[in-house]
């Protein structure tokens, strides 16, 4: 044994360090929230949606009210290569003399000029004894004995042997059939069909006006130009869906955040006062809360609209926000009251009171901050509920007024064309679903993070 053996052990600082840094309640909650993948993804989605709503218009500079009637209800994936032509040639009716012979089917049917998505011109050889011709359009190849499709028009009489179709032509294959009519207006059995595939065309002048080409001298007819891109397609009046969804996001998100903010403040005030004072004050406030809860929302929404004197063509949004704020606070108030009833029995409240804390101090310093957890959670759940309410009210026509879009109103427009052009319903519905889901998952995460009992479980 030497002296060395008795050398004191080097002072270890590590032992004295706490295994975990000291965390405040909020730091701890934040840590747990950040660890929650689902909640974090939701948070990013929400931030992204907010950015899209408020910064989007500066990036996607398309007017949401501008209508392009040549491309209504256009799906995102539609071909947008247009062929340049020099000039629009005016439509010329083809009129011939009364033919002779015995043939009964209009022969030599052909397309006049180009088959375009704006118009398709047809002409054919006249049929003897025809009093007029009826023109059909089909999306399937006509079969003898079966209907020829959509009766798209009739000519004036038997010597007019041409027809111009302008009715909602898409870039797909059509079969046009021409049938002669006899002097009683009955169709001949014989018909002639032609397969037509209309394509996009644009005149040089139009392309210059829209800025697709800068100089008319270095392009030739037959060149292709790429028309404006609509990443999410267009709606029934040819308005850009993305621009409308961005504008709709502003409406939906701002209502979804502003209205809950206000009714939660009212709820906190009433709930904490009611819970703190108890007794008669509590009874009166809670009975009043019961009354408000019993009020039918839709009815009061309509009453508010009347009371606000929403003028012709005015927006129902302010009335909607007021109705939401005035009718939705009871839930929060009850929640906060319950919390406050618990908290006020705690020792530190008693201590604070004995040290001379006034009621205002007690409510402001001890009650409200300690209820923040439940309040935050109910806020995140109130946001999607409010977005849903707005969507629903706009869906039934009580919310935004045209041309302002909102997601709910866009769904309402889209649902009519669900079968034919699903993208008009799909995108706004998707945005509503994603937003509501994101807020709900974030709320879930917040609830888990803020729940103090969760600390013990780790």
């Amino acid at each position: 044994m030497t002296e060395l053996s008795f050398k004191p052990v080097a002072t270890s600082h590590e032992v004295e360090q706490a295994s975990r840094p000291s965390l405040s309640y909020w730091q701890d909650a934040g840590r747990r929230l950040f660890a929650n993948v689902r909640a974090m993804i939701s948070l990013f989605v929400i931030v992204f949606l907010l950015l899209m709503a408020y910064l989007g218009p500066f990036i996607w500079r398309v007017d949401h009210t501008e209508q392009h009637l040549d491309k209504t209800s256009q799906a995102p994936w539609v071909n947008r290569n247009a062929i340049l032509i020099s000039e629009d040639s005016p439509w010329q009716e083809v009129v011939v003399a009364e033919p002779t012979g015995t043939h009964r089917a209009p022969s030599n049917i052909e397309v006049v000029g180009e088959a375009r998505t704006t118009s398709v011109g047809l002409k054919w050889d006249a049929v003897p004894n025809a009093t007029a011709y009826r023109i059909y359009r089909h999306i399937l190849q006509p079969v003898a004995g079966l209907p020829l499709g959509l009766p798209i028009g009739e000519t004036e009489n038997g010597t007019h042997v041409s027809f111009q179709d302008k009715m909602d032509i898409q870039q797909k294959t059509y079969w046009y059939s021409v049938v002669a009519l006899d002097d009683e207006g009955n169709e001949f059995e014989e018909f002639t069909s032609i397969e037509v595939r209309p394509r996009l065309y644009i005149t040089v002048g139009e392309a210059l006006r829209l800025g697709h080409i800068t100089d008319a001298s270095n392009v030739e007819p037959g060149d292709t130009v790429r028309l404006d891109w609509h990443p999410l397609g267009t709606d029934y009046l040819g308005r850009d869906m993305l621009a409308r969804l961005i504008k709709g996001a502003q409406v939906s998100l701002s209502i979804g955040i502003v209205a809950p903010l206000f009714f939660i403040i009212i709820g906190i005030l009433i709930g904490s006062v009611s819970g703190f004072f108890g007794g008669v004050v509590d009874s009166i406030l809670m009975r009043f809360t019961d009354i408000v809860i019993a009020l039918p929302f839709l009815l009061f929404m309509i009453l508010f609209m009347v009371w606000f004197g929403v003028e012709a063509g005015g927006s129902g949004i302010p009335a909607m926000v007021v109705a939401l704020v005035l009718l939705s606070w009871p839930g929060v108030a009850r929640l906060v009251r319950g919390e406050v009833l618990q908290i006020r029995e705690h020792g530190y409240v008693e201590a604070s009171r004995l040290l001379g804390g006034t009621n205002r101090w007690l409510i402001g310093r001890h009650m409200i901050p300690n209820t923040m957890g439940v309040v935050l959670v109910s806020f995140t759940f109130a946001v999607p509920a409010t977005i849903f309410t707005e969507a629903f009210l706009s869906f039934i026509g009580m919310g935004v007024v045209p041309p302002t879009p909102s997601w709910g109103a866009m769904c309402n427009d889209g649902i009519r064309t669900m079968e034919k052009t699903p993208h008009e319903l799909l995108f706004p519905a998707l945005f509503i679903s994603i937003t509501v889901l994101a807020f709900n998952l974030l709320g879930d995460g917040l609830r888990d993070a803020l729940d103090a009992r969760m600390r013990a479980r780790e």
Partner: protein
Amino acid sequence: MTETLHNPKPRLTATPGWQLTKYALYALVLCVVLLLLLGFITEKFNVGATSTSAVNFEDNTITLSLTSEPPQMDSTRATDMVSGMLLGHIMEGLIRYGPENEILPGVAESWEMGDLSGTFHLRQDAYWSNGTPVTAHDFVFSWQTALNPATASQYAFVLYPIKNGKAINVGEASVDSLGAKAIDDYTLSIELEQPTPYFIKLLAFFTYLPINKEFYESREGNYGTNAEDMIYNGPFLMSRWVHDKDVRLERNERYWNNSQTNLDAIEFGYITPDPNTALNLFATGKIVLAGLNAENIERALTERWRIETHSDGSVFYLGFNHRAERPTSNLNLRKAIQQVCDPEELVFKVLKTPGNLPGESIFPVWLRGVEGYFRDEFPAPDHKRDVASAHDYMNRALDELGLDEPPSLVFLTGDSAFSSKHAEYYQSMLKEKLGIEIKIDKQIFKQRLAKMTSGEYDIVAAGWGPDYDDVLTFGDLFTSWNANNRGLYKNEELDHQVEIAQQSSDPRTRMEAMDRVQHILYEDAAIIFEYERGSVYVFDDRVKGVTRRSVGTDPDYTQAYINPEVDN
């Protein structure tokens, strides 16, 4: 070798993402299973096909749907199209329209009609469904009831051509003073207020149908509310009316022309306003006819159904508010708006259904003129969108109105999905082309009429359907005395031309006056012609002999029959 057991990697199944995916997969599998199961059940037990098929060969019956429940079936108070269509099958007036809108004898066997009076000889074999004969008294009673102010009939004005008709309706004369008298049971004499060349055509309108007085009074105010509370004199009688559910019409054995009726019954088995529901009923073979809209035409095409078009005879237009305090009372503003409107664009790009015609005149193309069609003889005013001239008009309008920028206007329209689409089109178009801000005011029909009457609008989307087969049914719409001229348009020359057409019995004079009317309306931009409404529908071609018309009972199944050749 057991290393991995001791250090288990975090299991994939424990992460929240995987849980979500798992639930989504479960849900998907469940959906697929459910779909297959339902498909199997419908296939196996034939849920789709029930006993009421669209065409029933054994019972000689066809099934149809109604877009709405008729409010009641009292012809003196009827206003809507569904009531009008049903009344056309279960009742018969003095005359009826044939398949080509020709006038055929109805209860009246023959008649002499002068300028100011007429005598109608009623057939003696016309009976009510309870066996009592149809007499001249029944017509007089019905007309007196409709004109009686106590009935408050909305269509009483249709009877105004009869002497004292208007005076009775406004309460200035007693109902007995009506210029229609029963000389005996089978002779009806009618005196007119003033020469009314189209009077004979009016007689097929539902307000002119007869009502049996004894029966009407025996129901003590309930006449027309139920199938039992009516008696019938038309080709069919109503054998069942379950409110809001269905209506059944059966062959009326006591009808004088019963041998010409082919069907034994017409079943209106469904009442639904939704075109998609009706189309599904058609698809499953439950109804004979279903209307199409721009959205579901494609489905009808892929199914290769027979598609037909029909013009319902009505004309749609934008009406202006001509009250002096409104900006639209300014001619140049109206002209500016008129010059940027393009009915072709509206019909082909916005309405998108065939059958509609771009509007060119207040008179639709099917109206008869002197010899042929009115519009062939008197072409409509030329119109082409002209944005440059619209701006000229706009600048002048701004000067006259003392404004710096285009005014904001209220666009009054209906509450349907179509109305709002149509209004949004004008909203964007007028904003883009003229810088006019449009506020869209959507209102239900009744409220819209009230707002039109009180003048709380600038532009209104309006339409007019014909009540009788004559140019005047459209021509007198904008006279200063017409109650339907709710924009209070006043033009002395137009009033004068309408008076000429009302009083003259010379067709050419009348039609020339009407030609002036269509041009005055255009030059003054009193209204903007939009479109003539047509409809597209799918039809079961086993049923023949159905007449579609612009005026009168539409669709008319009175002569319909089931084609025996294509039994399947």
